């Protein structure tokens, strides 16, 4: 290896390696990497129409950074993450802990919490919009309020986050539950003997032991939230007055690229979003060293 010459067996192994990753790598390059490179290129161009581009340097980025809608979309995306990730994960963890207790009908509860996962997002958003309807919706009726859940710019993003959490809680809870179930009972027994209360047990045993699963769940949720589009698009249409205070980066990308046909500036938004995801992910992986416990 060091000399650069491979033995026959090693070379054969290498060939097998290439052969076996080939479909996936070729597929990813053709389907994803190449389009992404094109996106990066397009972000420095103006789209004249029908795939004709004119190189304009950094103009798209300069305009983007000057655009208040863009900054709002960035803010909305981050706020959506803050709403869905910590709150969502916390609730999921609660559900997982409850389900991990010795309860009868456990699989029934699990089935119920997981149900939204197997429903078409279009169906889910439709029923929630109907529930949220300010005039005829059941939610205002139950609460006795008159809140415009999806059209008031102050609450619309929260409403979207509620639906996102509701949809994902079962998925996250199932992941966390499997983490919880891997914790050996003996830890808790030992702690009980030492006189540790439930809450101490949670912080000293449960949390550290489940931290790797928690980390994976969090990363997955964070990725989904940073890339959120479908859900907001279906909850808040383009004519909704709350649009600018709800639209996520990918939503803005969609409107620029697909609706207005400005694929250059759309691409700049996409590149920015990928950068943001990259930065957040790197921070997550650095941060995890402080709290994720891989010793078990």
């Amino acid at each position, binding site marked *: 290896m060091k000399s650069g010459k491979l033995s026959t067996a090693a070379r054969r192994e*290498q060939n097998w*390696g290439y052969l*076996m990753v080939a479909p*996936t790598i070729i597929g990813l390059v053709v389907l994803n990497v190449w389009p*992404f490179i094109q996106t990066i290129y397009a972000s420095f161009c103006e789209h004249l129409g029908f795939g004709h581009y004119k190189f304009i340097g950094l103009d798209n980025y300069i305009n983007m950074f000057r655009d208040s809608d863009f900054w709002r979309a960035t803010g909305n995306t981050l706020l959506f993450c803050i709403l869905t990730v910590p709150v969502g994960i916390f609730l999921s963890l609660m559900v997982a802990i409850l389900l991990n*207790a010795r309860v009868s009908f456990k699989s029934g509860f699990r*089935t119920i919490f997981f149900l939204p996962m197997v429903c078409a997002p279009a169906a889910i958003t439709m*029923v929630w919009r109907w529930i949220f309807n300010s005039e005829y919706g059941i939610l205002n009726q139950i609460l006795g309020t008159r809140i415009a859940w999806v059209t008031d710019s102050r609450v619309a993003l929260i409403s979207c986050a509620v639906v996102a959490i509701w949809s994902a809680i079962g998925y996250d809870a199932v*992941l966390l539950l499997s983490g919880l179930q891997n914790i050996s009972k003996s830890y808790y027994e030992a702690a009980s003997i030492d006189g540790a209360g439930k809450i101490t047990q949670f912080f000293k045993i449960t949390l550290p032991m489940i931290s790797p699963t928690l980390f994976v769940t969090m990363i997955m949720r964070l990725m989904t939230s940073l890339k959120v*589009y479908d859900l907001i698009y279906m909850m808040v249409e383009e004519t909704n007055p709350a649009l600018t205070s709800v639209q996520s980066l990918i939503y803005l990308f969609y409107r620029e690229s697909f609706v207005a046909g400005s694929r250059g500036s759309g691409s700049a938004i996409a590149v920015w979003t990928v950068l943001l995801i990259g930065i957040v992910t790197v921070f997550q992986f650095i941060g995890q060293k402080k709290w994720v416990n891989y010793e078990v």
Partner: protein
Amino acid sequence: MRKKSMENSKRMGKIITYAALIFGSIIMIFPFVWMILTSSKTVSESMQIPPTIFPSRIMADNFAEAIASLPFLNMYINTILMIIFRVIFAVLFSSMAGYAFAKLRFKGKNFLFGIVLMQMMLPSQIFIIPQYQMVAKLGFANSVAALVFPGLVSAFGTFFLRQSYLAIPEEVGEAAYLDGCNQWQTFSKIMFPLTRSSVAALTVFTAVFAYSDLMWPLVVNSDLKMMTLSSGLATLRGQFSTNFPVLMAGSLLAMLPMVILYLIFQRQFIEGIAMTGGK
């Protein structure tokens, strides 16, 4: 005394646990109940102030209208075919790549694996137009193959199955090698069967995500008859705008097959998903 108070607190804990679980379940179930109730109301009934809870009569009209507007049978078939093919591809190619990344030594492995990791960070919307153009140029737009196309390879699947191959001890491969297996045989005869539960997990994961894919079928396929359930349902909104009873009826029809499948195979579903959390 002390024992009694402990038992009391234990009972209290139980009660709180059940109360919380039941409360949570109600929140989870309620939208579905509301969907069912709304689906048999008339529009004017659905827009009463204050809202009526129960429909005045069980009405099939909304379902009839939804069925008249959407080719549900085609959509069921398309969805099933799309899921089956995407799962087969994801499992086949991801297993191969996952195995190679975990067990084989070859130059540039880290770089290539980096591509896999990077793909997971990219938002899928940016691929829609380029991928559509590939499909159109290859001449198979408006077909089931077009629905499957973006799912030919799976970065997540590769990443996930690599984890399970990493967990298989090196000795297993060495033993196979000594038995005279080549790499492909080691993989297909020895290693692949060992990852059965991960493959099941990937199957569920792929199926759930293929099912919820919204934009791609809408763009690549030009006719409602070639839509999947999720995307077809989205077009119903274009036709009935805010006529919620019909929309709810359509939603129920679109959800039903997956929900039934889920209820039958719920254990496999949930255990499959649980595995995608790693470890």
